Structures are given as C-alpha cells and as structure tokens.
C-alpha cells in the first residue's frame, strides 16, 4: 500500500449528498480515499485536498 496526497476539483451538485458522492467518485479515480476536505469553493467549483491509498504488493521488511 502507498499513501498519496492529491487535489481535485468537482462541480457542486444539487444536494450535499450528491456532492459528497461526486467527491468520493472523483477521488476514487486516483485511489481509495482516506481523508479529504473541501478547502475552498469558487462559484460552483469545489477544491478538494485528500490523501488516498493505492494497493501495491505487500513486502515484508
């Protein structure tokens, strides 16, 4: 497993629930979301910062 800091931009949806789903779907393109936050909103555009994880072969130390 590896951890990655990423950013994303998502359009605000018609409801907070749909917006949440849109954010998670966008982040899942880059990995499994671990922690994220909308950091600012410009017009209807949400700026998101996140850490996601991606699977890699597990190597024993």
């Amino acid at each position: 497993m590896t951890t990655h800091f990423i950013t994303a931009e998502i359009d605000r949806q018609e409801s907070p629930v749909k917006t949440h789903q849109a954010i998670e779907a966008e982040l899942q393109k880059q990995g499994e979301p671990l922690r994220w936050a909308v950091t600012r909103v410009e017009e209807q555009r949400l700026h998101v910062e996140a850490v996601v994880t991606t699977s890699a072969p597990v190597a024993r130390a």
Partner: protein
Amino acid sequence: MSQRPYTVVLIVPTGIGATFGGYAGDALPIARAMAQVCDRLITHPNVLNGAQLYWPLDNVFYVEGYGLDQFAAGRWGLRPVHQNRIGLVLDQEIEPELRLQQLQAADACRATLGLSLTDYIVTDAPLQVQLQTAASGATWGTIQNPDSLLRAVTQLIQYAKAEAIAVVARFPDDPESEALQAYRQGQGVDPLAGAEAVISHLVVRTFQIPCAHAPALQPLPLDPHLNPRAAAEEIGYTFLPSVLVGLSRAPQLVRGSNQQGELWSRDVDAVVVPATACGSSALFHLSQSQARIIAVSENQTQMQVSPAAIGIQAVQVLSYLEALGILVAHQAGIDPTPLSQSLQPLKPLL
C-alpha cells in the same frame, strides 16, 4: 426532563490552523463546557488531546476522525465501553532514548491511572512520515511504509487482543522551521497534524478499531515567549498520556448492530463546527440528518468553506459561548429568537 438524551458532535478539524483547537488541545475547555450542557458529546482526538494534559469526561465519546466520518454516514455506531485494552505501536525509527520515554509514559499511565495496556510492538520497518503543507494552508502528510504499521496492528489485535491502538511515529525534527516557530507563538498551522490524522485514519479504516496517534520528537529548547495555547506540548517528554486516556474509554466502532446504549448518527441533535471549515465528509452527512448545525465564526481557519457554499443550512454564531447558549435553548425546546432579538408578529404563510 426530555426522553431523548441530547447529543452533540463537536468538530474542529486538525491541521487547518483553527484559532480554537489548532494548537495543543486548546479546544478542550470548549469540550468541557459543551459536555456540561449536553447528555453526550462526540468529538475527536484533536479536541481532547493535550499531550500530557487531558480531562476525563464520562459523557464524552472519543472518536477518531475516520470513525467519525463513518458514524456520520450512518455506517458505524458507537458502543460505549468500561475500558479498552490498548495496544501500543512504536515506530522502528524512534531512537532508543525516545522509545524508553514513550514506554515510561505508558507505564506511568498504567501505574498511576490504572489504564490497561498490552505488551507493545515495534514496527518491522521505519514508517517514514513525510509532512507537507497544501495550497490551502492546511497541513497533510503521508507515510512511506503503511503496510508496516498495519502489520504491527494486526499482531496486536491477533495476539495481544488489543481493543484500541495507540501509535507513536517518529516525526521529523525541524526546530528552526518558520512553521514550528509560528505554532509555538500560537499562530499558523500545526505542521504535524495532517500526517497524524492520516496515520490514525489508516488504522481505523483497516481494522475498525479506536486509534489515536502521538508523535515522537526530540525536545525543543525552552522558549520564554511560548504561547499558552501551545504550552501543553512542551511540558513533558511525550504526547502519549492524553492519547492513552482517550483510548482507554473510546467507544468501540460497530457495524450492523442495534444494541441498547449504542449511538448512531440518527441520535445526533446538534453539530458545532468552525464556520469556514464546513467541507468535511462528516458534516456533509450530518447536514442531511435532523441535527442542527452551528457554525462558529470566531474559530477562524485556513479553510474557506462556509455552510452556504456547499448548500448546508446552519445557525451562524460568533463565539463558542454563543454556541453553548444555542445548545442550551435547543435542548430545552426553546426557540432562541426571543432570547436575542425582538420578536415580530406571525405573518400569513401565503
């Protein structure tokens, strides 16, 4: 007396430079006050951890941020406990002297506070924490060897029957950095906070077990101008006691259960959050429940997300003192309008 216990969620996200709660457990007085005016307070380690300092509160639920997100989504419930057996994970990278200090802090919590700890484990590789500050000003972080952390936790759960996990990772020392200097003056953003959250989130997501983190760092030189808000982290060798105290009675995270005494998101009556930090997963979910959202303007942060910006209805207050008043009125079933402004006559709806 109400038939329904009044339940509040207090959120102060870590690593966003919150005026209240962005330093060394400096939101703890807010949590203490809030715990007095509600039946149950749910909040997260950033609020309750003051390194060496803590304040046990019987009606407060210590819930790690990832667990709080899942609770808010209705996927996980909170099952109260009498005591958790805590497993301690130490980063292989911690030097022998620092490691001994962590272990002695843990032993002190066993002998003097009666906490229950399992034997500890050292990760099979250095976790290698990396810190960064994002464009927003929030601090984040990653770890290079997350699998080593997860292997250690697996062993604690399997062989030591740990019911909660305390992680101590070696964090980079940078005593001259501008970020740290600002933090010690009670300004800026905690440079460690974002990475700490990632560490505990990893454990909670993987194992559905209470978890919290304390960094291992070399002591800083004395600073005669140290801000009181940052002081709690500079009065001892470790940050561990508050973490262990919090974990000792942190609720278990349950799924698909409905036992008496458990809390689910439907039980939440109010959520208190900084007015500019409304972009969290937990708040998105809770805003769709019947909970009243209270946004506090005085708790400024690096974030720029108001409730309106994401379509959330909220009561805007200036201060936490005002928020406490709203909670008291809400619990009592009193409309706060006549308490603060002149009341206008009713008008026809249409």
